[in-house]
């Protein structure tokens, strides 16, 4: 079994309401150093050995992310 982690976030410039709310809340709590909070999705994907990253990319483009509004990042997890 191989594992890939996929991180899905809104593209730059797209308003992220939960992120903006958390940002304001943290600043309100006194964390003045907070500049920006973006909240996205984290997907753990277990796949058959030998599955290529291209294949995972295809899954992201088709279903896990919407390229109109979201970016995604794929990380291969070794030795899990």
């Amino acid at each position, binding site marked *: 079994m191989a594992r890939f982690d996929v991180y899905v976030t809104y593209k730059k410039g*797209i*308003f992220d*309401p*939960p992120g903006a*709310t958390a940002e304001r809340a943290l600043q309100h709590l006194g964390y003045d150093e907070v500049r920006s909070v973006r909240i996205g999705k984290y997907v753990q994907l277990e796949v058959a050995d030998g599955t290529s990253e291209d294949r995972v990319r295809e899954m992201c483009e088709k*279903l*896990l992310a*919407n390229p*109109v*509004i979201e970016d995604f990042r794929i990380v291969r997890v070794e030795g899990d």
Partner: protein
Amino acid sequence: MRFGIVVFPGSNCEQDVKHALDVLGLESRYVWHGEQDLSGLDAVVLPGGFSYGDYIRCGAVARFSPVMNEVVRFAERGGPVLGICNGFQILTEAHLLPGALLRNRGLKFICKEVTLRVEASVCHWLDAEPGSVLRIPINHNEGNYFCDEQTLERLNGNGQVVVRYCEPDGSRAPGGSAPNGALDDIAGVCNERGNVFGLMPHPERAVDPLTGGTDGRVVFEAIVRRMAKIGS
């Protein structure tokens, strides 16, 4: 003329659509999401609801339902397709309409009557006078329309923006009139050809004076008029 109302697991407005069509004396039948035959149908409606629990993104899973291959083919042949609320979200995920629906700007689910301005558009599903104002309810959490700048330019240039949120007198507030934060106050768009129309407001819930007015009737009446004209 016969309407098909597609029912996905989690749809919850199919009966509202059926009722609206019944009130208008229009024939319709439900189409289960596993069906792959739309023959005998002249128009297809994707109703509101929470198809597949809105998992991943609203409409992202419904888009891969067996029936959707047929809906795409139907639309490509010029068949009229209407997506209301979750139906609109499904149509954008299926790439039948441009853009996407984001979470409401204020993070709240909004359920209320709004005013919509009819724009001059190529849409087959609306032939009301441009500038006229419709009162129709909205009921959604992800209705904040978004597309990139080039797409917006194209939508405006091609007459693909069909209805915009507006003030009761038809004007648009300087800070925007969309209760959900939608880009350019956009409430509904159609494809270039005009046969596929998606909107967040629920015209099917505004067909009876008993429940708040009849402004939603125009959508169903427009497509009937158009189909009659083509047929004759």
